């Protein structure tokens, strides 16, 4: 294949596996970008009165670190596993809407690039500086984000980028709901669904219900900034606290959007390497669903310091404490899964066990936040920074790394090095605890978050230095992982169908799987098809196989996606013609997409 043809085959692909890989590599690059931003932050805070970066740049760094990690790294990394693994686990040939899937990916890339362009486009806006990245924090509280207090293009990049990314997430959410509900292999009843696919389903429902809320919030903000409305401004009867409600009604489900997939991964990895089925499958699934529902009733625990009154504080405190119950139940079920097993400490298993250990700490500090009076001393300090990183790094990222080591052989046909893997785990585990544990104390001793400088009088200088050392250790660990991935391309051991002795359907087919995944769609008769004897029906000798339908590639999802950032250029540059160009591209893309022949 010529180079151009190969490039085109990736630009037009609708194969869920290739899209999964695209999601993985793109999201991993943004994971590195977000990590680099974190290292700049830690370098600045290594000592009091630091001078590594300016106040303005620091404010952009922590805003983009949060935004990048949540929307451009963690969510798309989970999406990469949704894409690659879910169709294989449920015995499907692809997702329900392959071209919509490609559209989701391209919208994600373009939205991410648009938002990150703000690092270099200062001169285009006559800003007097190179970087005009968003700078109001990842939850961008109104009215700081109003045109009056943020006159530059910074917040415009943020709100337009997030609007575009929302389109991607919504499309993907609908796609996976339909896929999981409708494309399951015969016999794959809902209560036989692997837990990872279950958590993907719950997450997708959270996405399609939570993202409309932030979309509305962002539309109101856009109107405030561009058309002079006053939704978040007190001057005409608006209220900045409205933004906080809208943002956290989205924001708390978003936390579960980030953690539930990792819980799903852990629920696959632990049984495989303990050689025992998941303890209390039904309970684990239902507690996941319950967490999904309860996640909607806790948003104001992010707002205890707003002063909503004792009644509201008490109610949201109670609902928040309640959510600890299903979360605790999951942890106990994982422990019971390990109990009595034959634990093989592969790197995937180490990360999964690390998840339990660290997520527990994040959960416990979460309980101290659930108590409003205690939270009044902790919120907006480094204590809450410690909490979110134990949940999202110790939880989500450890879960994702477990998934990477576990499914890498399936996705590429080669096993990652276990020796390098263990170095990776050790460095990240030690680094993470050095970086984030001291933050509990730093916060309790009075250091707020989001400050580019602090006084030596606070007495937290040494703790901050330790934290910075930990952060750089994490960086070294991630470099080891990158080296591991790089050398595995050529030197990795070949995997075969099933290097781990897994129980689920993805391990029945070759690694990487053929385009159509399954020669014959399997018929499933149990929850653990590969661990139950006489499972997969053999194909009768000489049986005539039905023709396999594989959707052809299409360039139109990419074209349609291209229209969105062009559309965003209109408000960004205050030039209306971009809006017409963008809309034309979108309409053209959708039109050609709609009338494209079904088969390639």
């Amino acid at each position, binding site marked *: 294949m010529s180079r151009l043809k190969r490039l085109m085959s990736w630009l037009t692909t609708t194969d869920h596996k290739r899209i999964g890989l695209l999601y993985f590599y793109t999201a991993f690059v943004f994971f590195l970008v977000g990590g680099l931003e974190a290292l700049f932050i830690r370098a600045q805070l290594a000592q009091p009165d630091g001078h590594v970066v*300016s*106040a*303005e740049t620091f*404010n952009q760094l922590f805003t983009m670190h949060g935004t990048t990690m949540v929307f451009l790294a963690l969510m798309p990394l989970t999406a990469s596993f949704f894409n690659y693994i879910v169709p294989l686990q449920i015995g499907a040939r692809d997702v329900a809407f392959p071209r919509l899937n490609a559209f989701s990916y391209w919208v994600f890339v373009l939205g991410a690039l648009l938002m990150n362009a703000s690092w270099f486009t200062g001169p285009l806006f006559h800003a007097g500086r190179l970087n005009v990245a968003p700078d109001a924090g990842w939850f961008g509280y109104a*009215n*700081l984000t109003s045109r009056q*207090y943020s006159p530059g293009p910074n917040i415009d990049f943020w709100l337009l980028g997030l609007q575009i990314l929302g389109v991607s997430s919504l499309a993907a959410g609908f796609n996976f709901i339909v896929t999981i509900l409708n494309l399951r292999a015969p016999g794959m009843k809902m209560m036989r669904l692997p837990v990872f696919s279950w958590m993907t389903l719950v997450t997708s429902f959270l996405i399609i219900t939570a993202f409309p809320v932030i979309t509305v919030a962002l539309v109101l903000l856009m109107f405030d900034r561009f058309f002079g409305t006053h939704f978040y401004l*007190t001057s005409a009867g608006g209220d*900045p606290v409205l933004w906080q409600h809208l943002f956290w009604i989205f924001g708390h489900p978003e936390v579960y959007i980030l953690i539930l997939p990792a819980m799903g991964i852990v629920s696959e990895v632990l049984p495989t390497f*303990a050689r*025992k089925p998941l*303890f209390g*499958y039904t309970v684990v699934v239902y507690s996941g669903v319950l967490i999904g529902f309860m996640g909607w009733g806790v948003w104001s625990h992010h707002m205890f*310091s*707003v*002063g909503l009154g*004792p009644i509201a*504080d*008490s109610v949201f*405190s109670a609902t928040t404490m309640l959510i*600890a119950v299903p979360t*605790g*139940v999951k942890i106990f079920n994982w*422990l*019971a899964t390990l109990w*009595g097993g*034959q*634990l*093989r*400490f592969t790197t995937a298993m180490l990360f999964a*066990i690390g998840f*339990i*250990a660290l997520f*527990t700490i994040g959960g416990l500090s979460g309980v*101290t936040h659930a*108590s*409003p*009076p*205690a*939270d*009044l*001393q*902790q*919120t*907006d*300090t480094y204590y809450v920074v410690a909490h979110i990183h134990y949940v999202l790094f110790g939880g989500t990222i450890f879960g994702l790394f477990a998934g990477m080591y576990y499914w890498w052989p399936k996705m590429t046909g080669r096993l990652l090095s276990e020796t390098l893997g263990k170095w990776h785990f050790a460095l990240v585990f030690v680094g993470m605890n050095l970086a984030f544990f001291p933050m509990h*104390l730093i916060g309790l001793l*009075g250091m*707020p*978050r*989001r*400050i580019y*400088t*602090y006084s*030596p*009088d*606070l*007495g937290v200088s040494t703790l901050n230095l*330790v934290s910075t050392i930990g952060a750089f250790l994490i960086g070294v660990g991630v470099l080891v992982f990158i080296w591991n991935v790089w050398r595995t391309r050529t030197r990795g051991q070949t995997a075969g169908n099933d290097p781990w002795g897994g129980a689920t359907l993805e391990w029945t087919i070759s690694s990487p799987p053929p385009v159509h995944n399954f020669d014959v769609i399997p018929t499933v008769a149990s929850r653990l098809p590969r*661990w139950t004897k006489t499972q997969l029906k053999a194909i009768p000798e000489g049986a005539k196989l039905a023709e396999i339908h594989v959707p052809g590639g299409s360039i139109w999802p990419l074209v349609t996606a291209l229209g969105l950032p062009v559309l965003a250029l209109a408000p960004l540059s205050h030039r209306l013609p971009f809006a017409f160009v963008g809309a034309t591209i979108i309409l053209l893309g959708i039109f050609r997409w709609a009338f494209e022949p079904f088969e390639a």
Partner: protein
Amino acid sequence: MTECWDSSTFDAVSRDRRWLLPLLCAAGAACGGPFPQSSLRPRSDFAGAIDRLFTDIFWWAVLVFILVEGLLLFIIVRYRYREGAPTPKPTHGHTLLEIAWTLAPALILVFIAVPTMRTIFATQTDSPAGALRVEVVAHQWWWEYRYPELGVVTANELHLPAGRTVALALTSADVIHSFWAPGLGGKRDVIPGRTNRLVLRPDSVDTLLGQCAEFCGASHANMRLRVMVEAEPAFQAWVGRQQAGAASVVKGSLAEHGQQAFRRYGCVGCHTMGTMSTAIIGPNLTHLGSRMTIAGGLFPNDSVHLTRWIADPPAEKPGSIMPNMHVPAGDLAALIAYLRSMR
């Protein structure tokens, strides 16, 4: 290690939290002296109630931590893979166990929830009659304090009498801020269009540090504050000095030259200064000389820092609304002399 254990450090950490000391010393942090902005050093009824509640929850968390992590470690050692061991029994679940580990955490949460609710209602009461009222107005990036009953207006340094209940009314002049002096208790957001309240009674004479806790723009990190909790007579004396008019300047002195410069360079456009000007964009400077700090609690109030500050405010404090007025060195020295004489 020994220097970590001097009495000031020991005193800086409340009694039930002294087990923390070795931990802090090990981290080298305690050796920096006491922690003036620590939330573990309650100096009011509000902070004390929070501290007791947090200590309760903390010990419950420690208990669960030891249980879960201990169990995990035990499992890792006991059930590690051994060559030739039989395949584990495929257990799928156990209803009684599930019920047990659903109820146990729920029960612990009841023990946390009850004192939590009590503290919520106990710390959000109406202010009693006779409480000292202070209006706190947050600005980008400094704090204004108004004592309406006393006719005193000052900035960044909040003076409170020990043992008297104080009712703080919090409002914002621009964006959302958060008033936080950990020794006084939890933070409360300061939101445009709303008046938030904090009611508390400082219980001991001390100087506490605090700062804005809600990101509020470029110099959020530089929006600091101090709370001087003083004995009643010392507080009354301070009030007396603040109620007095602006200090008079000696004719022909450097300070008088500075007074003219204060007018000439437009300082009067933003700052209140005695009866000369009543502008309220920047802090009231009538008694600037009596304050310990300048520029939002950022720098000590001495000639060196004052000079550097007025010479180029945005360079000292990013985003500062106070512009560089390009005051020549001669006028600058006079201005400093004048401001320092305004005690």
